[in-house]
């Protein structure tokens, strides 16, 4: 059950569609990577990263790895980046990078380390793969009857132990993070509904909602206290943080509405 498109993509020469896809998406991926580092706004940075990841997913698909490509899009671009974004949004939308270096010389160090790491990975990959005698995708795919079947078989036979250990590690990390971050109140400390009700109606507590500001007053400003039935001001109707405001004589004058 080999797919025609997959086979076409698997042949050695880069065909028209693949070449076009590469030359359109590769600059976008690079722009995304640069933009991720350069963007001032954290959310923009995350979006650039998502764009790069999406492009990489499409590259995998074009290079006849449909499963890994879609897994990349669903898991990394869809779920993990989304959680990043989730956290960044909670931080606040105006939390931009400051231009002042808080750690002295950290930018220079980061650049040098980054270039060094890229060189290390590049040479490592080159030395590891430069002399590999590739069997070709067609041979690998026909051996197990398809790309996905091949991945599934390897994942659940040869690499099953590594796969399970990795997932156990990830779950341990997730559970650990949850345990460290989560504070659960004990059942005894939690107030029950009857207790809450009793507290609400206990003497000294006013059980009904507080009167809204501006109720039965001549203005609907939040700074205008509500009036009690006897005409006096209801202090509770004004928030403590609202400063008391003296009305001007024009404001305090009767507006002809009291007739």
């Amino acid at each position, binding site marked *: *059950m*080999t*797919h*025609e*498109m*997959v086979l*076409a993509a698997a042949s050695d020469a880069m065909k028209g569609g693949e070449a076009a896809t590469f030359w359109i998406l590769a600059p976008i991926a690079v722009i995304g990577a640069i933009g991720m580092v350069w963007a001032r*706004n954290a*959310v*923009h940075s995350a*979006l650039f990263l*998502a764009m790069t990841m*999406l492009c990489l*997913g499409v590259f995998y698909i074009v290079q006849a790895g*449909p*499963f890994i490509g*879609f*897994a990349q*899009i*669903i898991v990394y*671009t*869809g*779920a993990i980046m*989304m*959680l990043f*974004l*989730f956290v960044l*949004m*909670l931080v606040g*939308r105006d939390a931009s990078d400051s231009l002042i270096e808080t750690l002295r010389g950290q930018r220079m160090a980061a650049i040098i380390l980054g270039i060094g790491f890229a060189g290390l990975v590049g040479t490592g990959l080159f030395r590891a793969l430069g002399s590999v005698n590739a069997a070709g995708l067609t041979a690998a795919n026909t051996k197990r009857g*398809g*790309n*996905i079947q091949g991945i599934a078989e390897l994942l659940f036979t040869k690499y099953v132990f590594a796969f399970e250990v990795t997932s156990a590690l990830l779950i341990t990390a997730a559970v650990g993070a949850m345990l460290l971050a989560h504070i659960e109140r004990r059942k005894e400390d939690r107030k*029950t*509904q*009857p207790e809450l*009700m*009793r507290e609400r*109606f206990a003497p000294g507590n006013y059980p009904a909602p507080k009167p809204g500001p501006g109720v039965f007053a001549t203005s609907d400003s939040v700074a205008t206290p509500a009036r009690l039935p006897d005409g006096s001001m209801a202090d509770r109707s004004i928030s403590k943080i609202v400063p008391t405001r003296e009305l001007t004589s024009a404001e305090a004058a009767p507006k002809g509405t009291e007739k």
Partner: protein
Amino acid sequence: MTLAAGSVDQFGHDPWWLVLIKIVGIFAFLVVMTLFTIWYERRAVAYMQVRPGPNRNGPFGLLQSLADGLKLGLKEEILPKLADKAVYFIAPVISATCAFTAFAVMPLGPSVSWFGHMSPIQLTDIPVAVLLILACSSMGIYGVVLAGWASGSTYPLLGGLRSSAQMISYEVAMGLSIVAVFIQAGSMSTSEIVEAQAHGTTWNLFGLTLTAPSWYALLLVPSFLIYFVSAVGETNRAPFDLPEAESELVGGFHTEYSSFKFAMFFLAEYINMVTVSGLCATLFLGGWRAPWPVTIWSHANSGWWPVLWFTAKVLLLLFVFVWLRGTLPRLRYDQFMRFGWKALIPINLVWILGLAGLRTLQNSALESRIKMFITVAVVLIVAAVWVLWPAKEKSKVPTGIEGIDPAGRVGGAEGFPMPPLNLEVPPSPRAPRLTAEREPVPVGPATGDKNATEQEGR
């Protein structure tokens, strides 16, 4: 060129003009379905609420949504001052694009002749077509979340955050419910899944030959139900419409959107509904294949007729969406998340485990007697664990509402007043004071005094 029906090999041979026709066709199908679904939903909900619904524009009000759409497109576009302009503009585009893209792999029918060229009524298919739909829906979340963030306003942000949490959670349940279909069909391609449901699989179970129902909705009931529930959550529809809960968040993530951008969100929401319904029909209800009574007619599954069956199935599923909206109140957010993570996902995992075990047992070369023994043993062990699992001790904390004291208070003297359970009206606590403070009023037929007071009153 002869190609096996229902295999991905039959795709990828279309000339460019045919691809173009199919793309335009799918676009038109989705837009028309959106317009129709809006009308359909409003009419169905109106019928449930005993009112006419839209009935002015066109026959039965069918053109109402077209008129609304035109009006929406011509409205003034408002850009909030605090909006992040680029992201604010991109968000609805992402939403609508992902919604349209997902439908590309939806099988609408078998191979038919397109101006002499044989090709299936489906834009394309790939070995991982269902994953493409999942990927599109996970990218579609970006549209919602970014819209919420870029609006620079509180309610949209809350709606965006809610929806990102909700859609990611329910996508997990959705993906897991589809796994059972993959196991059963042995493929992730939509056309092959439809083909796999063409005939009931015969199972050689313990020497008995059983013909399992062909539709996975019947064969894999738990998966079907979980899929549908998570599809409702995934499309932000009632009763799971927390991201756009009107009573809490105004409009949710699209509060600040107006005119054409809002129309794109609207379009995306309804297309997503059509897509999840179409995927449901494809995965669980036999896809474009005719349902049972129609299959008596031998041409039911050939030519362009299957598009009709597919559309009918989609409309039926859309009706369930509308029905849910008309019936159920909105869930509370924490209950909703608990339901997703603590009910749907564990049930799904156990079900997949059981199904995979059964399949492995079936494919193994063991004797049927041993297979039967293993199955019975597993069932017995599970039943034993179920029965013997120590029941959680229900701690009896006095809630304080058991006792009612003679004064009609619940929970002792500190308790709260309650209507008497025997329905005898107790004497009013104010009665003695009234009699004490007021002059006793003569009650009953008085002779002269009463007339005098009446006259005074006049």
